[in-house]
C-alpha cells in the first residue's frame, strides 16, 4: 500500500458525516425543538446532528493535516454487479414473479466475478429459483406472485 499526503480515509468519512448531518439538520428544520423539561420532536435530532457534524468536521480536519494509507482502488465489477442484482430484484419481483426475478438476480450477481461461467450459472440459477419458490411461496406463504401477472 502506498502512503499519501492526506489521510483520505478520514477525509472521506468526515465529508460523509458532514453531508449526513447537514441533510438531517435541513430535514428537521421545521420541527419544534422545545426545551429540556418538555422536549419537542426536533430536540434529539438537533442534538445528535450537531454532534455528528462536529465529528465530521474533526475527521475532515484530521484527514487534511496528517498523512495516511491510501485507499485501495475501487473495483467496479463486484460493486456494480451486486447492486444491479439487488436493484433488478426490486424492479422485477412483483411484476414478473419470483421465479423469473430469482434467475435474473442470480445471473446478474454472478457477473461480479470473472470466475463465473454462464454454462454453470444458468442451471444453478434455475435450480435455486425453484428452491426459492418452493421455500418462500409454498412453505412460508410469501404473498409474491410466482409468474408474471
Amino acid at each position: 500500500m502506498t502512503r499519501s499526503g492526506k489521510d483520505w480515509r478520514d477525509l472521506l468519512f468526515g465529508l460523509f458525516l458532514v453531508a449526513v448531518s447537514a441533510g438531517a439538520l435541513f430535514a428537521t428544520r421545521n420541527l419544534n425543538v422545545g426545551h429540556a423539561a418538555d422536549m419537542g420532536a426536533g430536540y434529539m435530532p438537533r442534538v445528535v446532528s450537531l454532534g455528528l457534524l462536529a465529528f465530521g468536521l474533526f475527521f475532515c480536519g484530521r484527514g487534511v493535516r496528517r498523512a495516511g494509507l491510501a485507499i485501495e482502488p475501487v473495483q467496479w465489477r463486484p460493486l456494480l454487479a451486486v447492486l444491479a442484482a439487488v436493484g433488478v430484484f426490486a424492479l422485477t419481483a412483483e411484476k414478473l414473479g419470483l421465479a423469473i426475478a430469482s434467475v435474473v438476480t442470480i445471473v446478474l450477481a454472478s457477473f461480479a466475478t470473472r470466475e463465473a461461467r454462464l454454462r454453470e450459472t444458468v442451471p444453478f440459477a434455475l435450480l435455486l429459483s425453484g428452491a426459492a419458490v418452493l421455500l418462500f411461496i409454498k412453505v412460508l406463504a410469501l404473498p409474491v406472485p410466482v409468474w408474471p401477472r
Partner: protein
Amino acid sequence: MDLFDNLLLGLSTALELNNLGLCLLGVLIGTAIGVLPGIGPIPTVALLLPFTFGLNPAGAMIMLAGIFYGAQYGGSTTAILVNVPGETSSVVTCIDGHEMAKQGRAGTALAIAAIASFFAGTMATIVIAVMSVPLSVLALKFTAVEYFSLLVLGLIAAVALAHGSVAKSLAMVLLGLLLGLVGIDVSSGAARMTFGIAELSDGLDFVPIAMGLFGLGEIIANLERPAERRVVSQKVRDLIPSRADLRAAFPAMLRGTALGSVLGVLPGGGAALPPFSSYALEKKLAKDPSRFGKGAIEGVAGPEAANNAGAQTSFIPLLTLGIPANALMALMIGALMMQGIQPGPQIMTEQPRLVWGVIASMWVGNLMLLVINLPLIGLWISMLKIPYRLLFPAIVLFCCIGTYGIANSLFNVWLMLGCAAIGYFFIKVGVEPAPLLLGLVLGPQLEENFRRAMLLSDGDFLVFLSRPISAVLLAVVAALLLAMLSPTILRNRKAALADSP
C-alpha cells in the same frame, strides 16, 4: 433455591419438543455458517428473522442463539482445515490449529476444539444462571434515569472494546442514533426525516440495514480479494485425542473459559476479544513459548474455550438488563421487539420462561454440537468445497427475498441496496459498522428514557448525577472515555488487537 427453580423452568421450556427442534435447526445452520467463510452470523440472523415471526418468542430466541454459538463451533473447523477463519473469533485458531492439521493431527485439533468449546459452553451457562439473579434484582430498581445512563454505558463500552478507531466508532454510534430517530415521533406525532415516504413513518427497519451493511457490503469487499482456499486434503481420523493431549489441553481450557466468561460480559467484547487474550496468556504461561505457531495444542484449546465462553456470556446484559453487548445481540433485541416484547431491565421478571428457556437451551445446544460436530465432520468438510462463485449469488438472492419478506415491501429491498453501497464505503474508509447498528436499535429507547427522565426532573440534567446507581454508571462511562483518550491505554489496546485483521 430460586436458581434451581429457574433452571428447572428453563429446562422444561428448552426440552419441549418444538424448542428442541428449533435449537437443533439453529445449531446446524450456525455450524454451516461458521464453516463457510464469506458469510457471518450477523447477516444470517438478519436473514432468518422473518422466519421467526411465526414462532413463539422463546422458540425464536432459542433458534437465533443456536445460530450464534453454532457459528463459533463451525468457524474452528474452517480455521483448522483451510487456514481461513470462518468467523472473526476463530482467527487465532488458524495459527496452531492449521499447523496441527499440516502435521497430520487435524483430527486431534478438531476434537480438542470441540471439547474445549463444549466445556466452556457448559461452564458459561452456569455463570449466566448464577449471575442473572442478582443482576435482575438490581435492574428492578431502575427508573428512566438509571436506564438512560445504562444505555449510554452500553453504547460507550461497546465502542471502547470494539476494533478500530474509537473516534470513528463514536461517530458511528451517533449516526445510528440519528437513523433510529427516523419516523413519526411518538409523543408529538410529527414526522421526522421521513421525506414524505410512507414506509418510513414506522422508522427504518434494522434488518435491511444489517443485511446491506454486514452481508452485501462484505460480499462485495470479499470479491475484490482473490479467493484462496486450500483444504488440507488428508483424511481426518483419530478423532479421539490421546490422554497426553487432553492433559496438555485441560489447563488451557480452564483458563480460556474463565477469561472468556469475564470478557464476554463486557459490552462490545462478544466473541472477538477473548480468543486473542487467551492465546496471549497461554503463550506467556508456556514453558517453551517457541512451540506456539508450530502446532501447540494449548493454542487451540485456550482460544476455542475463550471464544465459546465469551459468545455465551455476552448474552448476560441482553437477558438481564435488555441491552445488547454487540451488533448480533442488537439483532436479537430487534427480534424480541418484533415479538412484541419490550426489552429492558424488567425482562427477567416479566419473561422468566423466555430468559431461562434460552439459558437452558444453550447447554442443550452445546451438547448437540458436540454430538453432531465430530461424527458429521465429513459433511462439513464437503460443504467447504462449495465454490464462492456459486455461494455468493445465492446469498444475494436470499438477502433480497428475506428483506422483502419482513414487511412484504420493496422499499426495504431498495433500502438494503443503499446500505450495501454505504457498507462498501465503510469498508473502504476503514470503519466498523457494528456501533451503528447498536445506536440504531437503542436510539428510540435512549430518546424515550431521556425525555421521561427530563420530564420527571423538570429539565434538570443533574438528576443523572444525583441518583446513586445512575451516577455510578456514568462514572464508569467517564472512566472509559478517559481511558480511551489516554495514550498508554491506546497503545496497549492497539497491541491487544494487533493480531486481528
